[in-house]
């Protein structure tokens, strides 16, 4: 990974250390905006670049916030409040960046994605590298993106996608951007390990971090990444996409969850069907298999493995006319970590 050329030079031993990170997390824990902003500004005054502080402090802290929320040591409210403080820190640091001296890029989160802090960090890091960056916000509808692209004609779109089940929507946004003559650089874990699914849907490149985004923009963007994107590898894609709601309904009826869990389970099933459609789109069983493994943990309190097997089995029966899709479902069922009472 090439560091941005205009990065100031903090000596290697002057990386932002764990004590600083811990102090910052304490500010987040206390929802202490003033303290958090002061700490971040202090680091910049100390000679760290805005990019360093955003990536090595704010983004690192956010991973810890996510972990605390996942493990249940923080409530949703605490997580929201902490994120809100970090957003204000990003704003405060962004305000210190000088006027742009390079092209114009647009940052958008895939429709349905609301965790925008990572995208805001990318926005400010890319801005600090000299670009004019417009942040379109969380959950950007494809048509808003298109009208914005036609109005402003930017050099590139940076598209963030965190969850692979949103890949189908990401594909729609990539297609729309390419059709407007603007290449897309993808970012985030939603595009698969090492971003392996990014090119399948027509993105010009993929990066894991804000610094990657800067490095990707250093390379010239070719016109071959505009126009029609690579087509889906399988006719079944459109067929399954069309039957999405029906499939969710069938699977929900088969699981028949207790009423007070019904909405959660229905949402979980919808995500799984989306992941299936995405797996067909990018032609990779790994997507569905990983997603099923992840869902298994999320659904543990709702019946776990048994519920998943019921859902996958129902989908297999409903989609018998698409043998390749059925094969994917079977692979996901067999490939997921085995459970004593489960796969078979």
């Amino acid at each position, binding site marked *: 990974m090439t560091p941005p050329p205009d990065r100031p030079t903090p000596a290697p031993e002057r990386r932002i250390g764990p004590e600083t990170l811990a102090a910052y997390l304490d500010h987040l824990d206390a*929802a202490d905006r003033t303290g958090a902003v002061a700490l971040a500004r202090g680091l910049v005054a100390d000679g760290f670049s805005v990019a360093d502080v955003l990536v090595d402090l704010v983004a690192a802290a956010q991973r810890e916030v996510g972990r605390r929320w996942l493990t249940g040591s923080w409530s949703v409210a605490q997580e*929201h409040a902490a994120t809100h403080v970090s957003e204000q820190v990003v704003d405060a640091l962004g305000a210190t960046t000088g006027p742009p001296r390079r092209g114009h890029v647009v940052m958008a989160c895939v429709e349905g994605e*609301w965790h925008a802090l990572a995208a805001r960090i990318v926005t400010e890091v890319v801005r600090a590298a000299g670009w004019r960056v417009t942040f379109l916000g969380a959950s950007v509808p494809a048509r808003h993106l*298109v009208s914005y692209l036609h109005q402003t004609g930017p050099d590139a779109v940076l598209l963030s996608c965190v969850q692979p089940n949103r890949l189908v929507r990401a594909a729609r946004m990539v297609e729309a951007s390419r059709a*407007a003559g603007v290449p897309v650089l993808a970012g985030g874990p939603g595009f698969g390990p090492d971003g392996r699914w990014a090119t399948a849907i027509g993105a010009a490149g993929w990066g894991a971090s804000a610094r990657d985004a800067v490095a990707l923009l250093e390379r010239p963007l070719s016109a071959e990444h505009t126009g029609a994107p690579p087509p889906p590898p399988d006719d079944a894609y459109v067929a399954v996409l069309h039957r999405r709601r029906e499939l*969710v*309904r069938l699977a929900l009826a088969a699981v028949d969850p207790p009423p007070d869990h019904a909405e959660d389970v229905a949402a979980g099933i919808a995500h799984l069907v989306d992941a299936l459609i995405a797996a067909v789109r990018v032609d990779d069983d790994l997507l569905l298999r990983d997603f099923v493994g992840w869902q298994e943990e999320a659904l543990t309190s709702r019946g776990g493995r048994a519920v998943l097997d019921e859902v996958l089995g129902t989908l297999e029966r409903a989609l018998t006319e698409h043998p390749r899709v059925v094969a994917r479902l079977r692979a996901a069922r067999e490939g997921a970590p085995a459970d004593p009472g489960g796969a078979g």
Partner: protein
Amino acid sequence: MTIDRAGVVTLVNAMAADLLPEVAPGVDLAACPVPALAEAAAAGSDAFETDHHGRRLRGVRRPLADDRSAWYVRDVTEEHARTDALLAERSRTAFLAEAGSRLGLSLHREQTLRTAVTLPVPYLADAAVVVHRPPPPAEDQPHWLRYAIGDPGPVTGLAGWPTVESVPGLVEALEGDLTEPSPWLDAELADLAEVLPAGFGRPGTVLISPMPSAGGPAGALVLARRRDRPGFDKREIGLAREFARRAGAALAAAELYGEQAHLARVLQNSLLPPELPRLPGMTLAGGYRAAGDSLRIGGDFYDLFPTGDGGLFALGDVCGKGVGAAVLTGRVRQSLQTLRLVEQRPRELLELLNRALLDAPDAARRAQFTTLLLGALRREPDGGLLIRVAGGGHPAPLVVRAGGGVETVRVGGMPVGALTDARFADAEVRLAPGDLLLAYTDGVTEARGGPTEPAMFGDARLRQALATGAGLPPAALVDRVLQLVDEWLDGQPHDDIAMLAVAAG
């Protein structure tokens, strides 16, 4: 023509003598003065093809008895020309198809210009320059945009009239005069040097084509070739002119779209929800999602006006959708902005607004009404807020207590702008520090979606979302509700959605 085993020509028929007069009986074929044939003979290969005396010749060798062989030589000049023409036609069609699809992609002027200069390089020229006049309100100065082999991307600059006038044919092309464009050599090109890359040298040939469009000339396309590249032939001139025409049409479409988009943006900016001012002793946040169209404006709105002891908020919903509703929204906001200068009590202000809207000359014809909440926010000495909310037929606001309780503030009242004798109501609520009041439009609760059968998001889900988000700052809570509604909608179309949250402290 036959040769013996030593490779010496033994017999030449009349046709061979005509095509290859140099090859007579007795000549050693491997040393004959037709290089391609000599090479083939020396290498023992079975075929050759060459240009000879203005003809295209193709020969094949067939073995005869006793190690002798015969060369059959044909004149394929015409056949070859046809193949050449076919290949050229194919590449021309491919180029135009590519140009058509790429030029059709963007509706943005700069983007289209960039495409127009990158496409002809290197197929048609070593450097392409578009000289264009940006549309008003920009100053009428010719600008240029260049792409040449070796440029990492298109380069732009300001040309200035003297430069443009010094290049023969450029002014005519810019004015759209369809002068026969012809490649010219040896003209005075000193001034073109400033738009060509350093090190390009004096161009060999330059071809200037107007980029005409329905609305007048869109610009001129200048194609330059290096000295070591042959000039433009007739076919290439035709192709360049056709390409320039298509680029001109695409540029004109982009300009028209730009004008419309500018108009829409001005309208949009005047109608989008405002940045909320910061008021001491309270925190506010708004959330807004317009229904379907790409203009992102609609009939829902909110506003906040500072007052001496706090502020006055408004949140409303004009019946209808899209630009029509947005324009009436603008009128309601404008009226409130003015009327609050004479009346700051919410219920009285609603009555005044009702009269003002009904008094408008075309009010009866439009028959549009508005549901509205107006709230006077007053700071209390203990850090709390006293809110007096007046209602005009709008969904009741909700209070989220710091402890997680959610209460409805029953307001009531009739819609604004519908009836002259409409009655309005008001209610009062106190927020302790940490409490929050949320006013919202019915786009939130009536969002139809859900993972299975389409159903409304509804009051119960909204209340649950608020209860679990008690204690969050207003911005975070509004985001949370927007997110839940968005997930509920799952990509389905929705009505305008607006929310305004205020918390004490």
